């Protein structure tokens, strides 16, 4: 049912990427980007109104991707849906062949273009996993009502090794696994030392045997972007050395790709990592090159 599942379960190093759906009633750009990524990634995340900016839905974008022959990972936040909408949406997703679902709390609406909205947060991302896990295993909705047909789901969750309190981050990952997560995509890794530390406590607790962890990477495009990431994006830490490299680079894009490549090389050596998740925001065209440079495909 899920190609990503097969890849991860066979022990191969998985590669996923991300497409941000446009502010548009057309899926054309998604189709183009999907075509670009088709032969080099195992699956693609379709973000769900990320940073709380209204965009074409993750569901519609996932469907467009699927039609282009690229396996989608449907992202779903707890910000905009209560448990009724969530369950209904995964039934619909599964019915249309979208089986990878990423459970997220979501960026707060105060970041986006609908600041006056009321948020939902009926459940948090761990409870969302529990609900979907029950649906797929027991064929019941939350509360016990039977489903005629169970959804087939491969459940993803996020982990941010760079957020605080650091000591709790592995514990939170353990909770996500207990709630039903099959795979984890981490926040973008820039601070490789801290990521190594995180992964070593993950492995100490044997969690790498219970879930597939894909490390997030993000190519920096410019010095401004590096500064912006460091100062304005919650949950991302950028070492100063990296920022100065971007500042003094003659060709910042090439420098960004070099940093990304070095990061992937380091990540490959870390025990317990089962793949990478490449987040090239509005720069999806560079993904094939990152994959090639890092020798991620056989």
């Amino acid at each position, binding site marked *: 049912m899920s190609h990503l599942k097969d890849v991860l379960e066979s022990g191969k190093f998985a590669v996923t990427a991300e497409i941000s759906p446009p502010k548009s009633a057309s899926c054309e750009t998604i189709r183009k980007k999907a075509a670009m990524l088709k032969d080099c990634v195992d699956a693609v995340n379709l973000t769900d109104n990320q940073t709380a900016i209204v965009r074409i839905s993750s569901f519609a974008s996932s469907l467009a991707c699927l039609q282009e022959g690229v396996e989608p990972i449907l992202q779903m936040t*707890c*910000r905009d849906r209560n*448990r009724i909408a969530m369950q209904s949406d995964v039934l619909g997703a599964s019915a249309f062949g979208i089986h990878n679902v990423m459970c997220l*709390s*979501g*960026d*707060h609406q*105060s*970041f986006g273009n609908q600041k006056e909205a009321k*948020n939902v*947060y*009926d*459940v*948090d*991302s*761990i*409870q969302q996993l*529990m*609900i979907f896990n029950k649906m797929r295993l027991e064929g019941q909705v*939350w509360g016990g009502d039977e489903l005629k047909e169970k959804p087939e789901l491969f459940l993803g969750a*996020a*982990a*941010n090794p760079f*957020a*605080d*309190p650091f000591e*709790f981050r592995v*514990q*939170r990952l*353990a*909770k996500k696994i*207990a*709630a039903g997560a099959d795979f984890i995509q981490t*926040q973008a890794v820039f601070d490789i030392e801290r990521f190594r530390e995180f992964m070593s406590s993950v492995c100490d607790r044997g969690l790498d045997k219970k879930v597939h962890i894909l490390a997030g990477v993000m190519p920096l495009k410019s010095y401004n972007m590096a500064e912006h990431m460091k100062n304005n994006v*919650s*949950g991302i830490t950028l070492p100063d050395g990296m920022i100065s490299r971007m500042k003094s680079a003659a060709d910042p894009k090439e420098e960004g790709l070099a940093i990304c490549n070095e990061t992937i090389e380091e990540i490959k050596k870390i025990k317990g990592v089962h793949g990478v998740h490449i987040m090239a925001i509005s720069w999806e065209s560079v993904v094939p090159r990152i994959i090639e440079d890092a020798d991620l495909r056989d």
Partner: protein
Amino acid sequence: MIIAERKPISEIISIIGNNKKILIAGCRSCASVCMAGGDREVATLSEALGLYSDLNSLGWEISEISKERQCEKEWAREIAEEASSADVILSLGCGVGVQFIQEVSGIPVFPGLNTSNMGGPEEQGIYLEKCGGCGDCTLHLTGGICPIARCSKSMLNGPCGGSQNGKCEINPDTQCAWDAIYQNLKRLNCLEMLSEIIPPKNWIPSRSGGPRKIIRKEMVLSEDEKKIKEGLE
């Protein structure tokens, strides 16, 4: 206690509209403690509105009254009785007070405060929300700090990925409730509690179940008892 703050004067003026005789009603409980609607604030607002009326030759007649509480029928009735010659009552009580007075008053009652939350003063002049009134308290599971009211996403199983240096992702002035919960459980030597998953919450006892009504059967008077009580008063 209930935390509220006074509406901006310009908004109060526009709410008053063409009315001329205004009774400003204060509350000596919560609204007074959070310095939004006690005797002092009633006097200040009365002076400001008087000045505005004079400057614009509006001829407003402003009077003042404050009671122990507005959120009980007895007190609300006393306020309404005082207002017999007024056009409107401008309440500086919380939203509950406004509604209680309106119920027993034959003239319109307008809100002079924005009622915000259930919380308390952190220090003089700083008030923090503490409880979301969910109707099913689980503070024993979260180190005595309420994530429903104090986490921007009401998360129940730990901090989201935006928690950094003890601050919430929405704003560097906002404490991350989950960081506070973590530090507090650590202090209490109870960190192991955080490994338990709190399942999806039952929101029926919260506002999601519709307006809430608590009935204490043993306290409710029978029709006969009500008559006896009325006779005594």
